[in-house]
């Protein structure tokens, strides 16, 4: 395999250095490295990060190939700087057997744009009643370590307890979609001032917070680890902070959209802003940013949720929940965390690559940018500013809330084990 010399890249935002890739690994990092026999990529002050890892992606295949496939989703991932994504289990059929997770995993390998790590369902059919064969999914070729009924909450306390206990046998983790179902019947948006005015069913913060509080206590009781998906409220931050201070093994993620957008957007009744959990208030957004900066929230995960146009081009109540996010995540994080001074690029690498890889046990990802490590890398033009144009997305779906919004940063190159998946902003 050929050599690639990335010339003058700010590794994790530091002083410009050269990075030499040889085959699948990083051969050398330093100044003035020889370009002999290597293809040279002029980084010219761009920031070099370890390839991003998304712990929360909906690839929709099998079953909803009209909105996304493993191919289009992993192309979107590469385009956004990702080298590994965890594919959620709410497909049709549900990823609750070794057969389905292996299929998704194999499709990812065949396409080669990004490693696909399937997430297994916690319960059969995401129905919350009977544990799926978690061990079989772990032992399959897909090697599942993360289990989630995402889209639905594992609301039965006994099932949640058993799942937390059971996955200890093989170091798994349960990722909880925290949503008390009775408190959110008919919920359409955050419950508060705006829902009262718009006459849309409320999704109260307490419906998320009460489940998180229960689950951190369960995790403590049975000595397991638990991961909280798309944490969205200031109150949830307080609970996770308290749990961590008690030594409970809990990790949490926040989505880019919850770092940037608020419920005020819903006043347009434009379903592009309809998402679950819903957009919250300014106060929540600020608390989430602060929590991501201080490490209370461990990672950014996209909750990339593609939907076909017709599912959003309708009245609010009839619309599907969710937004695509893989191709805009890093820009939103730069806008909300880096350009605000809350996080430096080393911090971004930690929250978007190192920690998610560690929570999901994605070996070979989230590694330091140093000699001998796998060459999973992302090069970012942080000086760029431009309007988001969904027409240019690699994703099959266009349901972005950022259309026309100016955002900073653009991923220009992505390497997966030394192989370029994105060059000068173009997929290979």
């Amino acid at each position, binding site marked *: 395999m050929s050599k690639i010399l990335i010339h003058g890249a700010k590794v994790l935002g530091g002083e410009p250095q050269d990075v030499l890739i040889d085959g699948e690994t990083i051969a050398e990092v330093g100044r003035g490295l020889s370009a002999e026999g290597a293809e040279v990529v002029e980084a010219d002050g761009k920031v070099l990060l370890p390839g991003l890892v998304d712990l929360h992606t909906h690839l929709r295949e099998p079953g909803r190939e009209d909105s996304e496939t493993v191919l289009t989703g992993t192309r979107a991932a590469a385009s956004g700087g990702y080298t590994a994504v965890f594919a959620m289990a709410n497909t049709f059929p549900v990823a609750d057997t070794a057969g389905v997770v292996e299929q998704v995993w194999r499709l990812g390998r065949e396409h080669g744009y990004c490693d696909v790590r399937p997430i297994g369902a916690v319960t059969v059919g995401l129905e919350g009643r009977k544990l799926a064969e978690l061990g079989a999914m772990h032992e399959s070729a897909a090697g599942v370590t993360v289990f989630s009924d995402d889209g639905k909450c594992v609301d039965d306390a006994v099932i949640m307890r058993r799942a937390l206990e059971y996955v200890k046998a093989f170091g798994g983790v349960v990722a909880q979609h925290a949503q008390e179902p009775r408190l959110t019947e008919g919920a*359409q948006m955050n*419950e*508060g*001032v*705006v*829902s*009262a*005015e*718009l*006459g*849309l069913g*409320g999704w*109260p913060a307490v419906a998320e917070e009460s489940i998180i509080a229960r689950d951190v206590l369960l995790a403590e009781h049975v000595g397991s680890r638990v991961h909280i998906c798309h944490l969205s409220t200031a109150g949830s931050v307080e609970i996770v902070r308290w749990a961590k201070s008690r030594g409970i093994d809990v990790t949490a993620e926040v989505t880019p959209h919850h770092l940037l957008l608020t419920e005020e957007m819903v006043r*347009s*009744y*434009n379903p592009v802003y309809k998402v679950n959990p819903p957009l919250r208030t300014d106060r929540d957004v600020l608390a989430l940013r602060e929590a991501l900066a201080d490490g209370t929230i461990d990672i950014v995960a996209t909750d990339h949720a593609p939907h076909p146009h*017709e599912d959003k*081009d*309708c*009245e*609010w*109540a*009839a619309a599907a929940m969710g937004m695509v996010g893989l191709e805009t995540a890093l820009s939103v994080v730069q806008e909300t965390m880096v350009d605000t001074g809350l996080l430096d690029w080393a911090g971004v690498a930690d929250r978007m690559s190192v920690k998610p890889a560690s929570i999901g046990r994605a070996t070979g990802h989230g590694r330091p940018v140093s000699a001998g490590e796998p060459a999973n890398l992302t090069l970012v033009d942080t000086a760029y500013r431009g309007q988001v144009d969904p027409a240019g997305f690699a994703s099959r779906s266009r349901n972005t809330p950022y259309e026309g919004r100016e955002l900073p940063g653009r991923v220009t190159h992505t390497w997966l084990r030394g192989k370029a998946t994105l060059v000068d902003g173009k997929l290979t």
Partner: protein
Amino acid sequence: MQRHLISAADLTRDDAVLILDTAEEMARVADRPIKKLPTLRGRTIVNLFFEDSTRTRISFEAAEKRLSADVINFSAKGSSVSKGESLKDTAQTLEAMGVDAVVIRHGASGAPYRLANSGWIDAAVINAGDGTHQHPTQALLDAFTMRRRLVGRDAGLGQDLAGRRITIVGDVLHSRVARSNVDLLHTLGAEVTLVAPPTLVPVGVETWPCEVSYDLDSTLPKSDAVMMLRVQRERMNAAFFPTEREYSRRYGLDGDRMARLPEHAIVMHPGPMVRGMEITAEVADSDRCTVVEQVANGVSIRMAVLYLLLGGNEPAVSHPRTEEK
């Protein structure tokens, strides 16, 4: 006036007073032997009803016909909508037939707003009730009724409802009528108090321009008008209140409670009433109750709204008007 009527909150005081004044002119037409004006001759209005609401539909239809518009009634039941056709396709189909205005009733909050703002159609959109959001013509007809009764038919012209104390009682949480009335009455200078059990008041009500009370008895003596909202019996199954009996006892309007109102005060109800629940027959059938008047006024108000949105510069009634916006 704006091109559409989506929310009572979109109306300025002057807009609202203009509509009420115009409705008074329209009401005079109803007293004539021939209750018809040529104003909207040649214009087509579709009543697009995704929710059953015979009274609202008939009220709009009567208003449209009195203005000589061509009327198309479209009920979603039994139509292609029940076979999965989208709101967008339905609206575009109707517009392709040359519709000038769409009067829409929809179960989803915001559906009329989407119709007016998504670039799907060019026609004027009039909200005839959307989910638990707004029902602006209801608020207008209520304000019209209040102004007539509390200020006077002729004395009221050009006037708002400054300083009038209006109490709205019942299921505020699920009520588009309450939301529209709070917005419009505030714009018209009235002081609004909402009375309901705490379960039926929305979280977030604190920013609304009104007071909230859980105690009906203490509010009644300070009310110029009390508006009873319909309370659906099913609500008690979702634990909003324990029983029908307890609801009536605490929040229903009976003869004893009505006696605590000031002498001039009126009792209103948007209909349909649930007799024995929020209102007793004694109150519903009393002279102070304006339910039937509200229905008649509804036609005048809807004529006024349609005229002002669609009629352009043509004078509505025989004498000339100036300064139409």
